[in-house]
């Protein structure tokens, strides 16, 4: 085996690593649909969600926790199906893992101080989306994150906006549309 052949083998082997971003798109679409549906349900049926003092908190904690378990299982299963984990996969996993912990922290603090966590969570989400978009070099996710950041900042200055509708608009802008474009992009398979 001569030197040229060795270099060719190395190049071919390295080029066989493909970055599969479809699972990330699936995660974004899944979470946006879950939270938008929950927000609509809460908005149209407040008498069900808020039937007792803690029922709304239980509603907004238990379903996302179940979602976290489902997406964790999905991501593990998908990772095994693909057969390898790239450095980029690990970075994305760490970023969204940190978001998950921060979400739990924000929700706990908001329960203690009896304030709404919506804007803080949306602010954090917009930063994480911008970071993800920049890392994976996918402009739609970055733009979605920037749109969500602007919308969240706007909602801070308009305290009379309904926070459930803020959730719906914010997540449609920042997660659903970019998530769908990431999921359906052609060179992703």
């Amino acid at each position: 085996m001569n030197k040229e052949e060795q270099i060719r083998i190395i190049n071919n082997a390295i080029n066989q690593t493909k970055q599969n971003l479809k699972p990330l798109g699936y995660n974004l679409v899944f979470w946006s649909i879950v939270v938008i549906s929950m927000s609509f349900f809460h908005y149209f049926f407040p008498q069900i969600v808020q039937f007792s003092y803690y029922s709304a908190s239980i509603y907004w904690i238990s379903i996302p926790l179940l979602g976290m378990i489902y997406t964790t299982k999905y991501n593990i299963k998908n990772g095994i199906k693909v057969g390898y984990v790239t450095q980029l996969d690990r970075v994305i996993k760490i970023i969204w893992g940190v978001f998950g912990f921060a979400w739990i922290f924000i929700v706990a603090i908001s329960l203690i101080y009896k304030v709404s966590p919506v804007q803080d969570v949306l602010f954090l989400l917009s930063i994480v989306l911008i970071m993800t978009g920049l890392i994976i070099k996918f402009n739609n996710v970055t733009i979605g994150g920037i749109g969500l950041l602007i919308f969240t900042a706007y909602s801070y200055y308009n305290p009379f906006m309904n926070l459930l509708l803020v959730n719906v608009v914010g997540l449609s802008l920042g997660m659903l549309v970019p998530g769908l474009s990431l999921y359906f992009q052609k060179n992703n398979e």
Partner: protein
Amino acid sequence: MNKETEKLLFNPIRLKAISFLISVETCDFKTLIDVTDSTKGNLSIQLKKLNEAGLIDIKKYFYNSYPRTDYSITKKGKKSFEEFFKELKLLK
């Protein structure tokens, strides 16, 4: 780079395996079979040699009651591969 590592990476299957492992965090056995175009038995032997030389790590575990093996490159493996590649480029 020592002669032993150079000798190890002279084998095309071992070179393919380590070149792929340098671009990923971890990888399973099935993917390495596809990447190296080799048989299960031959690949096992070559990976064992890389592991004995300290160039790769082998992690065995169970997932859903099925045995699985993941491979990853070690720090020593990365360093050796980089030196090997640098020398290749110089000689070209």
